[in-house]
């Protein structure tokens, strides 16, 4: 057995288990050590990923593939996990929560996401998804003393279990139709099955898989769980789910649908394009009415998912490439936003948008960075989001779906409305009288700076990242 193929996953899972093991023996004063251990594990897994010499090789009896896409998603998930670990430490200490268990669950969830992304077989893909999902349910409900967190966890669990059941049903139909679980041969067999009298089942299976993955990435109309779960979850977990869980859903979409069901792309392309338009419109329009900043960002993330789906819907290599680029941009903008929100909520600052009044005068740096991340969400030039949207619009036009490009442009215009209302509150509204001091934790400041650098770098010198995402998407469309 060639375990070398999954060293990054083994390291990360091992560090997770070590955290669980050490947790009871580490006193309240030494909790910081557990945080350092988690950071060390994530960095070690990243180094193991970078020093993986093989590309394009199938390993572990066809269960995983080590192609550029695997490398891309492994690094994406590990970077996100690193940023989340950095800003969640202060958050947990503030609330007297158990650092060891939280970090362990974060490691397990990231391992699951990585297994999903490197899967070359539907069985390993499903197992990775379950590992990610189970860890996420617990992370959402992690705040023991907050009823809201429990409610969010239960909602996420019920909806996630339904999505898993749908996916499993669809995958079992696919196995019944094709007699194989290997992703590279699925598509041809499914296309062959289409010619038989029972061909209708193929669409049932494809529809079930698409619906289940739409649940996981919170695409409309399967997004109804997202605002509640994202609002109630501990704030670092909300950021983690928006970036890692949703990107893992996109990894599964690319593996299973773009590659696995490639021969049927004309049909699912239209379905996904419709889903993309619906998702971005619903997300943007609903976000306009939100008062709570986490809830607003939840709907904004639904809208972002719509943009990203457009890249997969066109079913071209360029489309997948711009999807990958947008995922990097989305990572930095989202985690940057959450680093700011956590820095503010640390001193009892509220989560309502009204609580942000006068922030521009009290903490100009924090307000400025939040505005930068919002600008990236909207797609203002010289930010990451602008280059990302440019790529998606270009891919949509090249893929003969110009109406999708129009949808992205119109929706970006709508989204200015709710980002502007927060910016106006921060910069123009007066400072409330009972405003306390705000201080970001050291880890939070590091992740804030890293996110800001990422957003600006992607906006100003995007070439390197463009090449990376195009290289990673090379083998996807067969």
């Amino acid at each position, binding site marked *: 057995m060639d375990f070398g193929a999954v060293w990054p996953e083994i390291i990360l899972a091992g560090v997770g288990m070590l955290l669980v093991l050490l947790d009871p023996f580490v006193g309240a004063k030494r909790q910081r050590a557990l945080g350092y251990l988690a950071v060390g594990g994530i960095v070690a897994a990243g180094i193991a990923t970078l020093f993986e010499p093989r590309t394009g090789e199938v390993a*572990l009896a066809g*269960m995983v593939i080590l192609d550029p896409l695997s490398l891309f998603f492994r690094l994406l998930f590990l970077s996100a996990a690193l940023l989340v670990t950095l800003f969640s430490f202060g958050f947990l200490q503030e609330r007297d929560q158990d650092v060891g*268990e939280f970090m362990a669950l974060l490691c397990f969830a990231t391992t699951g996401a990585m297994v999903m992304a490197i899967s070359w077989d539907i069985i*390993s893909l499903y*197992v990775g998804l*379950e590992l990610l999902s189970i860890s996420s349910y617990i992370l959402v409900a992690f705040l023991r003393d907050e009823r809201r967190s429990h409610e969010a966890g239960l909602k996420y669990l019920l909806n996630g279990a339904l999505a898993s059941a749908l996916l499993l049903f669809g995958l079992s139909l696919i196995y019944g139709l094709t007699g194989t679980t290997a992703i590279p041969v699925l598509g041809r067999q499914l296309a062959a099955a289409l010619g038989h009298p*029972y061909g209708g089942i193929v669409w049932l299976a494809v529809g079930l898989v698409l619906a289940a993955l739409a649940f996981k990435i919170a695409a409309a109309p399967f997004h109804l769980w997202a605002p509640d779960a994202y609002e109630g979850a501990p704030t670092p977990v909300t950021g983690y789910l928006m970036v890692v869980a949703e990107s893992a859903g996109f990894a599964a979409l690319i593996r299973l649908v773009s590659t696995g069901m490639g021969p049927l792309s004309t049909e699912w392309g239209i379905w996904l394009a419709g889903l993309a338009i619906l998702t971005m419109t619903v997300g943007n329009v609903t976000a306009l*009415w939100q008062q709570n900043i986490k809830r607003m960002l939840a709907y904004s993330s639904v809208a972002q998912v719509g943009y990203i789906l457009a890249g997969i819907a066109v079913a071209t290599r360029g489309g997948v490439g711009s999807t990958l680029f947008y995922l990097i941009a989305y990572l930095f903008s989202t985690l940057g936003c959450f680093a700011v929100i956590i820095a503010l909520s640390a001193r009892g600052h509220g989560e309502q948008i009204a609580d942000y009044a006068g922030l521009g005068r009290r903490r100009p740096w924090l307000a400025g960075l939040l505005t930068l991340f919002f600008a990236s969400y909207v797609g203002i030039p010289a930010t990451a989001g602008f280059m990302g949207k440019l790529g998606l619009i270009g891919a949509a036009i090249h893929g003969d779906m110009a109406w999708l490009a129009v949808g992205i442009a119109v929706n970006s215009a709508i989204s200015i409305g709710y980002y502007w209302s927060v910016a106006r509150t921060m910069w123009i509204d007066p400072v409330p009288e009972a405003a306390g001091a705000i201080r970001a934790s050291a880890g939070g400041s590091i992740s804030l700076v890293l996110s800001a650098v990422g957003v600006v770098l992607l906006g100003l010198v995007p070439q390197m990242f463009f090449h990376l995402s195009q290289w990673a998407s090379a083998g996807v469309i067969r």
Partner: protein
Amino acid sequence: MITFFIVAAVAVAAAIGVIAARNAVHSVLWLVVHLCSLAVLYMTLHAEFLGLVQILIYAGAVMILFLFVLSLLSARSAPNAAAWEQPRGQTGLAIAAAAVVAALVLVGAAVGNIAAPTQGAAGGAAAFGTVQTFGQALFGPYLLPFEGTALALLTAIVGAVALSAGHDDAAGRGLPATVAAEPADGAPIDVSHAAPAEPVATGGDR
């Protein structure tokens, strides 16, 4: 073939029983019937070892645990059938959807004559289903999913501990009132407290 249809009918009927039963203990008992009929199905497919394991672990150990948990919980609060919210219109929709799927599969199977999937990694027919081939498949081609599942189960255990046990100062807080409402000095349990937890605020944009 006849065995298959009888057992399959029992399995479907028991599955309906699981969701239709009002009493949670009855649901568990229906689930035992369902899992046993699945075990019979495995055996008719010549996967004898899997069938036995299914009975030993699922129908046996896991269901016992289910009953333990249920009796621990319902010792404090009687199952309140009246408060059970009856889904409106969903039953009909669910039956219709299930009928459409069943019709698709049955018609497809009848008309299209779906061939049984060729044997995958499990190997030759003679040794299929024995402990040896089962173990070799588990620790050979399916090692990664096997270990991944083990990790997922570990995560679930860690989560159960993290969410339910833990801090003494937070004991019961955030849990439903039924679990938290333990009389400290042997006083009789107040019935109004022992009622199911107040409905947690649901959905919608608050």
